[in-house]
């Protein structure tokens, strides 16, 4: 369920995170947008706080056209709250692993990195997950699928 925005804001402030934007308009829930360098600290801080966002529901990327948004979908089992943390990454930039905080991120991180052409740092096994090595980052909007013409002349 939707957590209290002011509570989350004060919580982040206490953890020493500055510049976090909170919004719940037109989004899937309460979305916290933070700087790239702070992503790990935010996720760790949210987990250690008394809200206890211990459950990483999902980790994925969205290609917005200007940059890649990495979304951490967190859940607090104790309070039954859900939170989305969005972090903007430049194309081809570095995705810092949060697996030490959330081991569940191990495979989704690998997948996200290969699908959006990011490099993976701090990950114990930064290989491609789904595609063979050397494939294009498929989920970027700039990567085209086969045209009808190609399919017809298969």
């Amino acid at each position: 369920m939707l957590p209290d925005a002011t509570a989350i804001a004060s919580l982040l402030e206490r953890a020493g995170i500055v510049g976090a934007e909170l919004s719940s308009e037109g989004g899937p829930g309460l979305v916290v947008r933070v700087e790239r360098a702070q992503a790990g600290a935010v996720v760790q801080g949210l987990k250690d706080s008394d809200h206890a966002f211990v459950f990483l529901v999902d980790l994925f990327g969205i290609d917005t056209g200007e940059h890649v948004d990495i979304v951490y979908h967190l859940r607090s089992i104790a309070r039954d709250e859900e939170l989305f943390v969005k972090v903007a990454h430049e194309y081809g930039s570095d995705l810092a692993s949060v697996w030490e905080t959330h081991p569940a991120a191990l495979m989704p991180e690998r997948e996200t990195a290969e699908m959006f052409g990011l490099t993976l740092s701090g990950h114990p096994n930064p290989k491609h997950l789904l595609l063979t090595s050397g494939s294009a980052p498929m989920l970027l909007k700039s990567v085209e699928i086969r045209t009808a013409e190609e399919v017809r002349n298969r």
Partner: protein
Amino acid sequence: MAIDRFTGENSILFIRSEQLFDWARRRSLWYMAFGIACCAIEGLMHASGPRFDFDRHGVFFRASPRQSDVMIVAGTVNHKMAETVKRLYDQMPEPKWVIAMGACASTGGPFREYPNVVMGVDKVVPVDVYIPGCPPRPESVQYAFLRLMDKIAENTEERLAARRDSDS
């Protein structure tokens, strides 16, 4: 020469035995337990199940490619999988046949536009029977096996006929 009727490639004995072996091959098609995707549920699991029971035709599954005659490609083949499919095909001993089950294995199906998907398994291994459908019902797979049996018989007859013609 009269003796030719009993020795050599076109002797009665030889042709009869070839027809006999052909009969045995047709009637004992062991397929490889190798399901790739959705079609495996229909073509391998339900096919061996109580209602469809391919064992009636002597169609039975083996886990090892070395002991199987037919490979049912049941599902989408992508670039990562294609290598494995080819290797498994190579591991099967001759004579061997391939059934491309479903739209994905035949042409790439609903996923054909995705660059990682191989547009039909016939780009990797030669296919004998294609089954349309997504997924095909087990009955279709059964029919495919019956067609495959016909095809094997026809091939043998054609081969024998060609040999007779070239001889006379």
